[in-house]
């Protein structure tokens, strides 16, 4: 019922030796990184816009409140209907999952920027775009990265579900492929790799946070 760690390690070694594991990691990691970049490029500007403009906040807040409770997983069947089984599906789901923590954390971090700094920048004659770039972005950086960390964690969890149902390959697909074949040891090898991936990406962003925003706790 449950293969021993030795058997799982053997299956893992086989999968690595045959190159299958590496191919799947490459495929899934590529999708994850693309989704992550998309989520930051969409989420951080929206969060900053919400924090620096009354209209931005009043406009985006209800949209985020309305859409966010619909979990990424609940989008899978609809996305399947729209896109079909393709790499675009897990990318869509993962971007969707990652974008909300990035928006909310960017927004709250940028809101906490000290009014003194903003007023000082204004007195010194900085234009609005420069105030956003030079005052809000550095202040919000830590929040953006916290959002990114939560977002990438959520994206890893979504990856397994999204690739299982909607993609022709990848780590999530492999887990369910081997589950279907009742090759539990191979399946667990892939489960372990997704877990390790989630763990490592979390540590990587924490490291990034300490390097880029050492003032954050």
């Amino acid at each position, binding site marked *: *019922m*449950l293969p021993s760690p030795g058997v799982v390690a053997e299956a893992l070694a086989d999968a690595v030796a045959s190159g299958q594991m590496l191919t799947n990691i490459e495929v899934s990691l590529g999708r994850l990184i693309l989704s992550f970049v998309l989520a930051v490029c969409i989420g951080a500007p929206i969060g900053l816009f919400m924090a*620096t*403009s*009354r*209209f931005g906040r*009043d*406009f*985006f*807040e*209800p*949209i985020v409140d*309305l*859409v966010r*409770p*619909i*979990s*990424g*997983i*609940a*989008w*899978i*069947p*609809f996305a*399947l*209907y729209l896109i079909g089984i393709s790499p675009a599906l897990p990318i869509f789901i993962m971007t969707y999952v990652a974008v909300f923590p990035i928006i909310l954390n960017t927004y709250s971090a940028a809101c906490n920027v000290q*009014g003194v700094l*903003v*007023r000082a920048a*204004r007195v010194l004659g900085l*234009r*609005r775009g420069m*105030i*956003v770039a030079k005052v809000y972005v550095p202040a919000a950086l830590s929040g953006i990265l916290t959002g990114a960390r939560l977002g990438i964690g959520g994206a*890893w*969890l979504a*990856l*397994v*579900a999204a690739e*299982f*149902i909607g993609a022709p390959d990848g780590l*999530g697909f492999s*887990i*369910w492929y081997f*589950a279907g074949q*009742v090759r*539990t040891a191979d*399946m*667990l090898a892939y*489960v*372990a790799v*997704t*877990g*390790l*991936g*989630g*763990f490592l990406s*979390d540590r990587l962003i924490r490291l990034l946070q300490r390097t880029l925003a050492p003032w954050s706790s």
Partner: protein
Amino acid sequence: MSETTRRLAFPAPTDARRFGTGVLAVATIAGLWQLWAHQSDGRIPTISEVIAHGANLVATGELPHALVVSIGRVLAGFAIASAVGIPVGLAMGYLRPLGRFVDPLLQAFRSIAPIAVLPLFLLWFGQGNAAAALVVAYAAVFPIIVNTIEGVARADAKLVAAAKTLGLPPMQILLHVLVPGAVPNIITGARIGMGIAWGAIIAAELAVGSESGASGGIGQLMFASYAYQLDVGNLVVYMISVGVVGYLIDRGFRAVIRHVSPAHRGV
């Protein structure tokens, strides 16, 4: 004067203007959806069609029944997660060496997605409610443990010292000092866990959807309306229902936290 500084100078905007912008936001989304629906030659249902589907699904009892089934599974799994997670969290937070010893294990399993352990649970427990409830329990247990540990660890050292000075045995300190102090954290953990659990049950039901049609929850209905009937109107209604239930669950927990927290503030 820029919008930025005006906002800082007058931090409270009028509610009417805020409401108006909110209406504009929702209207924009609705308008875009309608435009999309009309461009799609019937592939995407219009808003009125979605409402008609929703009314029909409520009238036939299909949607309420599925939601009750899914919520029941979530509650069962959530009960297991609380029964395991709170004592484990208390023990790990109170007995520091134990906490340090178990922590790497906790971190390792926390990184593994609930959906990734689902096939294993299906293999062990079959396609029924047990596997679904256990996936939920697995999803919810980690935030509960982590937040309970934090709640115990953040307890006021002065209170603990006072209790010790008054001669309370360790078990009494745990029950009368640390647990009450940790309650807001425990509820926060429960709230996060519940959010993840609600997502996990949908995924679990989608994954087993093809096998166990009749006793289906909302995830199974979603699977069926995609795979067998291809009824997009129903699919959109199911998606919205998932969002509404998730929202209501979260609001419920927030209300509980607001209710509980003031009593513990400053303790």
